């Protein structure tokens, strides 16, 4: 009697185990975000913890009694659980608390407590006082992204199509410079471009200083502390993020297609434009995102290669956050940066189709 009732119930649970697994993942993540971001006050915290524990224990019980079908359906959620929960607590919850602090006010300058008060004036302050920095961040990052395409595409092309058996070695060579520390590389550039450094001396000897001044690459005989230096540093540091995806997409192209075009009397320029370029666009697309996003948020290049007139939004966020302890305005700036980059990415994906980022 008992067993006949149990078996269909068990089968029903077994068939729907995937819904249960997904539901448990979502509920557990929500609990962690609630705990981390402080959605719930004192008395309710134990309740949320209890729900979280209940979900995990419930899953384990289901695995124990659910039979093979339920176990197979639950397996992927079990594998996902630890990593996804980690990201929920340390990626999603922080974003929430960032938005929260960006709308908070602090009672006094040295206070560490914040009161949430829909303080939109933090955002007006961010735009009013740091508009220039936002502009620099987006303009410098955009120019640097274009430059990485101009340098990275031909290099990737030559390695992919003319590398022959040295292909892998050449690719390794491209990556090797990036095994030295990011900061050391950037500091190295600052000494290379320094006023008494080798580059300025060479430019003086060749007589290109005048031309570079006209092109706004140099300023008052200085190469360092100019927008050009900051853009140059960004271009250098993020070049592999552009080059590698382009290389991957070029490598996949079947060279027979190009040969066929040549056999049919297409000029090589035309073959490139009609075959190679369209097929490599996904690489350029992924590279653009991987270059532009970190470049727009960077403050290291502007700090070591730029001047107070070339600061980017990253410098301002870091300064307001860590030096002035002005968390609300710093958070507002970070939130604006995050949202504007997210919307740019969205528009970009709409325009160019969904790029294969992974």
């Amino acid at each position, binding site marked *: 009697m008992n067993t006949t009732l149990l078996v269909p119930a068990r089968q029903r649970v077994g068939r729907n185990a995937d*819904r249960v697994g997904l539901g448990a993942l979502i509920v557990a993540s929500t609990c962690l975000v609630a705990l981390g971001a402080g959605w719930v006050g004192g008395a309710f915290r134990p309740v949320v913890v209890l729900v979280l524990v209940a979900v995990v224990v419930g899953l384990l019980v289901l695995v124990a009694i659910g039979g093979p079908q339920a176990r197979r359906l639950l397996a992927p959620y079990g594998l996902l659980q630890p*990593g996804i929960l980690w990201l929920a607590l340390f990626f999603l919850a922080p974003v929430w608390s*960032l938005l929260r602090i960006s709308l908070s006010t602090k009672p006094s300058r040295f206070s560490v407590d914040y009161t949430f008060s829909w303080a939109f004036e933090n955002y007006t302050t961010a735009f009013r006082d740091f508009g220039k920095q936002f502009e620099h961040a987006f303009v410098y990052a955009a120019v640097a992204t274009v430059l990485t395409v101009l340098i990275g595409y031909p290099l990737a092309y030559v390695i992919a199509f003319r590398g022959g058996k040295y292909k892998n070695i050449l690719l390794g060579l491209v990556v090797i410079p990036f095994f030295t520390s990011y900061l050391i*590389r950037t500091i190295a550039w600052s000494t290379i471009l320094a006023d008494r450094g080798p580059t300025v001396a060479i430019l003086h000897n060749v007589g290109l200083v005048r031309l570079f001044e006209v092109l706004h690459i140099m300023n008052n005989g200085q190469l360092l502390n100019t927008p050009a230096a900051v853009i140059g540093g960004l271009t*250098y540091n993020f070049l592999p993020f552009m080059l590698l995806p382009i290389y991957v997409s070029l490598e996949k192209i079947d060279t027979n297609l190009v040969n066929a075009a040549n056999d049919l009397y297409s000029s090589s320029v035309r073959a490139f434009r009609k075959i190679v370029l369209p097929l490599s666009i996904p690489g350029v697309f992924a590279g653009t995102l991987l270059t532009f996003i970190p470049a727009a948020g960077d403050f290291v290049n502007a700090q070591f290669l730029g001047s107070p007139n070339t600061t980017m939004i990253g410098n301002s966020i870091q300064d307001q956050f860590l030096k002035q302890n002005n968390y609300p305005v*710093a958070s507002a700036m970070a939130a604006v940066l995050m949202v504007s980059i997210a919307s740019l990415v969205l528009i970009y994906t709409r325009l160019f189709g969904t790029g294969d980022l992974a």
Partner: protein
Amino acid sequence: MRKRSKIARWALNIYAGMGMFYLFVPILFIVAFSFNKPRGNYNIVWQSFTFDNWLSPFSERSLTAALWVSLRIGAVSTIVSTILGSLIAIALSRYKFRGSEGINLFLVLPLTTPEIVLGSSLATLFLGQNFINFGFVTIVIAHIMFQVSFVALTVRARIRGFDWTLEQAAQDLGASPWRTFWRVTFPLILPGILAAGLLAFALSIDDFIITFFNAGSTVTFPLQIYGAARVRIPPQINVLASMILFASVAILLVGTISGARRQASMLGSRNTK
């Protein structure tokens, strides 16, 4: 006509060669200046050649201590993130399940968020929890957070072509699921996991921006360099940087050679069948 295309071909090669040279300019500079005998606090102007710095690479106490902190953080965070990330990758490539597209999107999100946002937002989370002190633990947590996505996506890409029917075969032959995983699946996906782990370790060692926001008074190698750059730049920085460079090149070489060998031997065994 022929001649023109030949010239164009060479022009492109030279242009690419210049691009390659551009990549190496600061590297040559760093390695060269590790042999410099600087006068004063900054190792910027070339004075004279010396091996002294290479003979005393660890003489800068604070620099060595910071490197040690970085290595420890890198080791702990890499182990945790490689496990978490590999589990996600196995779930995504082994199973078809409800919600997998959402998970895919969720994994890409941390990669499309600027580091400064990741770092500052995590710091606001820790600030909200009054009992957490910034330091080793918060840095490790932060590193695992950005490593998990990288590991998951790298491992997933590496095991995309994996033949999961091998598991079926093992189980048909009477192996338990547990035994099947450790004796069949794991050895086959291990190279992908190791590659992802190396990448995660490299990311951790070199991370500056996210660490900067969550370090408290703990000083990692990049933070030490950042702090030192304003006061003095000892040549030992160049020596340690060159050492890291040469060590990574060596690992890369060993990896490529053994990879090529494994491929060759696999092809060989397939031919004998």
